[in-house]
């Protein structure tokens, strides 16, 4: 028997909704079968916590007296984008401070940048804002230097053009020297392997064909409430999939938005990747309404049924070669070792399964407590047959 989101919301408001996490649903379906479980369960909570580079905030810092039309803006010496309205600005998570030594002393440390500023701002710390401009009749001021605090900003919005990758590459290094990558420090000759996904807890792996997650889906974002507003950049639904429809390559992505003032620095963390740069780890939780058996079956997916490609980051990734060394599943990855080219390779992750689990449980409590209801997506994400793909760049002379 199919349910509707309105019916589920009624039950949430009455405090009667049955909510389980994407881990708990696995056992339930195992024990009771998908038919019975789909009847009993209203919502499955999914979550992920990991570095998500295409993230950032925009904010309005208020008009100074006299006014300035900020042409260039820095926050704690990190440049922010000022090509918006007079006192609107966007700070990206991967932005580095002016004069950062980057990789001049290799590998660079990348201790501070956009992601760290966002973490500090959310934590309530004062941030130094500097702006410069040229004079106009309506905006006469040419320079501004002041402290800002999240509580004084007019609007401050987390707006991430690409988060929540549905599956991701497992990085290894086949060369003879250490590789410093956005997936971490890779030891030579298959010294280690690094993955970055919550596997069976990850939102889009539990809704592989985007049957419920879409534009307008209300989500847990950075400790507060946010929304899915579009497919993320590089959304690429038409990749190789298993019989369970789960993609075996990086596939779908989400663009998400939410009011930064109600978020928490525990779930928005500055990240420093040695030899690579800075970024930000974002905590996201997404509820999946169990509208029918098919949706229920998808949420019961487990680590051993989700496969990721192992890619050499010393040559294949940088050169955009197609080679995939192997496919491994998340149960193998989480066991601590995988076998590649007959060699036992120890594994580690950049995303945190423990944190993802915590988020899935927080979201479950919110829904059980009646303080978080589900939204009906205005439009679903482009799926396998949408014709939408992620094209490489064709350079032209």
């Amino acid at each position: 028997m199919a349910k509707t989101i309105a019916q589920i919301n009624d039950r949430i408001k009455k405090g009667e909704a049955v909510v389980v996490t994407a881990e708990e649903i696995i056992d339930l379906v195992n024990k009771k079968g998908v038919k019975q479980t789909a009847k009993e369960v209203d919502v499955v909570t999914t979550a992920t916590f990991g570095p998500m580079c295409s993230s950032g905030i925009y904010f309005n810092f208020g008009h100074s007296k006299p006014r300035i039309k900020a042409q260039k803006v820095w926050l704690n010496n990190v440049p922010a984008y000022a090509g918006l309205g007079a006192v609107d600005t966007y700070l990206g998570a991967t932005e580095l401070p002016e004069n950062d030594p980057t990789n001049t002393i290799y590998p660079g440390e990348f201790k501070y940048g956009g992601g760290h500023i966002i973490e500090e701002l959310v934590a309530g710390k004062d941030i130094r804002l500097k702006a410069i401009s040229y004079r106009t009749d309506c905006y006469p001021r040419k320079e501004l230097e002041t402290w800002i605090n999240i509580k004084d900003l007019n609007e401050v919005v987390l707006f991430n053009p690409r988060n929540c990758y549905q599956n991701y590459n497992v990085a290894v290094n086949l060369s003879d020297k250490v590789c410093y990558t956005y997936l971490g420090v890779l030891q030579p000759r298959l010294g280690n392997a690094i993955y970055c996904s919550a596997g069976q807890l990850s939102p889009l792996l539990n809704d592989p064909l985007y049957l419920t997650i879409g534009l307008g889906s209300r989500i847990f974002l950075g400790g507060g409430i946010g929304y899915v507003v579009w497919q993320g950049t590089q959304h690429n639904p038409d990749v190789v999939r298993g019989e369970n429809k789960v993609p075996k390559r990086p596939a779908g992505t989400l663009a998400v938005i939410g009011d930064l003032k109600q978020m928490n620095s525990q779930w928005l963390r500055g990240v420093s990747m040695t030899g690579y740069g800075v970024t930000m780890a974002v905590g996201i939780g997404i509820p999946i309404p169990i509208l029918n058996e098919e949706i229920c079956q998808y949420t019961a997916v487990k680590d051993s049924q989700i496969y990721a490609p192992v890619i050499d980051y010393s040559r294949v990734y940088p050169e955009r070669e197609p080679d995939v060394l192997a496919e491994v599943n998340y149960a193998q990855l989480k066991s601590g070792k995988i076998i590649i080219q007959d060699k036992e390779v120890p594994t580690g992750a950049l995303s945190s399964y423990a944190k993802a689990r915590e988020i899935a449980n927080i979201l479950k409590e919110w829904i059980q407590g009646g303080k978080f209801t589900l939204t009906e997506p205005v439009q679903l994400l482009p799926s396998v047959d949408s014709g939408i793909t992620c094209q490489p760049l064709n350079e032209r002379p």
Partner: protein
Amino acid sequence: MLKKRVVLTFPKETVEQPITYHLIKNYDLMVNILSAKINPDEEGRLVIEISGQRKNLDNGINYIKGLGVTIQPLAQDVKWKEDRCTHCTACIPLCPSHALMLDRVTMKVSFDSDHCILCGFCLKACPYQAVEILY
């Protein structure tokens, strides 16, 4: 009994000398090798913990100095900041001594400083600035 953790840096010529053997045999010291490395330019680096009577320790250290070996106190501590650790596990395959350990049921990381050999691998690998080396 006194205990000292020291880093010995050997110039090329002394790499071959059985220093730890002499420390044990001639100075009655206990030597625990925490890490040993020879760089491509053949300079050696040995991290050891030596323990014994104060007098023997002093004599042993003077013996080492006399060989032209640089001796420095070891970075005293690796500090794991639990509140900054996200339990991502990036450090786990790199930590040679299992001082950083993962419980695969809770998927949470813990740190036992007694096992730490202060190699510093975790420092570069931790994306969340959760480990610090104090000198």
